[in-house]
C-alpha cells in the first residue's frame, strides 16, 4: 500500500494552513496600522513584505519535504 502519497498530501495541506494563518494575521495587523497612520504606509508595506517572505519561506521548507516524499 502506498501511504507515501497520502503523507505528502496531508503534510502539504497542513503546511499551507500554517503559512496562510500566519500571513493572514500579518496582513490584518498591517491594515490596522495603516489605518491608524496612513503616512507610515510605505514603511509598513516594506516590513509586511519582508515578514511575509520569511513566513512563506518556512512554509516552503515543509513543502519541499513533502515533494521529496512524493517523488521517492
Amino acid at each position, binding site marked *: 500500500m502506498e501511504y507515501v502519497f497520502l503523507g505528502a498530501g496531508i503534510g502539504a495541506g497542513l503546511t499551507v494552513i500554517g503559512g496562510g494563518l500566519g500571513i493572514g494575521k500579518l496582513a490584518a495587523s498591517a491594515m490596522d496600522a495603516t489605518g491608524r497612520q496612513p503616512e507610515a504606509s510605505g514603511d509598513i508595506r*516594506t516590513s509586511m*513584505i*519582508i515578514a511575509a*517572505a*520569511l513566513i*512563506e*519561506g518556512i512554509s*516552503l*521548507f515543509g*513543502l*519541499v519535504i513533502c515533494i*521529496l516524499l512524493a*517523488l*521517492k
Partner: protein
Amino acid sequence: MILESVKAVTDTLSKVADKHGGSGWIMHHVLDSRELGLEPFGVIHLPQLHLFGLDISITKHIIFMWLAAIIVLLIFSVVARSYKKSLVPKGFTNFWEILIVFVRDEIAKPTIGEGYQKFLPFLLSTFFFILTMNFLGLLPYGNTATSNIAITSTLAVFSFIVIQGSGMKKNGVFGYFKGLVPHGIPIVFLPVLFIVEILGLFTKPFALAVRLFANMTAGHIIIFSLIGLIFVLQTYFVAPVSIAFALFIDLLEILVALIQAYIFTILTSLFIGMAVHQDH
C-alpha cells in the same frame, strides 16, 4: 555532509524527470536536463564533460545562468559607460537608475547604516543577477536557473562568505565571535546561547537558498499543473478556465520573481549589517 544532502535532492529529482507520463511531464519541464528542448523544432543535446570523476556537463540551467550573466553584464556596462559621459541619466540609463537607487536607499542604507558603500557592488550584483534569472524563466522556451538548488546554494554560500568576512574584518576574528552573544546575561546561559548563535550563522544562508529555490520551483509547478489539466481531463472545454488561471498565476509569478530577488538581497544586507555593527 551538506554536499551529500544537496546531491541526494538532485538525485531524487533527476530520477523522477526520467519517467515521462503522469507527473513526469511536469517534472521534465521544471527540472534540469541535458538537452535544450525547443519543442516543435527538435532538441539540442548539450555536451557532457567529466573532470576528475566529477560530472560537470553543461545543462539547461547552466545555459540560462550564463545567458542571465551575459545580459546583466551587457546592460550594466552600457549603463556604467553612460555615467562617464554625464551624471544626469537619460533614457535607458534613467530606467536602471530607478532600480539602482531603490537598492541603495531601501535595501543598503537602512540595514547596513554607515559604511554601506563597500557592500553596494555585491548587493547590486546579487539583486540584478537573481532578478534576471527569475525573469528568464517566464519567457517562452525559457527556464528558471534559480529553480536549481545548486545555483541558489552557491548564491547563499557567497552571501555567507561576504557576511562572515566583513564581520571578521570589522571586529577581528575573536571579537566577532565574542560579539555574537549579547552582554549582560548570566554566565550559565553563555554556552547555550553561543551554540545557538553559531548554528544561526549557518541556518540563515541555508534558509535563503531554500526559500529562493522553493518559491521558484513551486510557482512553475503550479503553472504546469494547471496547463496539464487540459491533457489529464482530455477535453478542450477545460482550456479557457485553465488558461485563465494559468495567466493569473503567471502574473503572480512576475511579482514573486521581483519579491524573491528583493528578499534575498535585503536579508543578505540585514545579516551584513548585523555582522558589521554588532552592538547596533
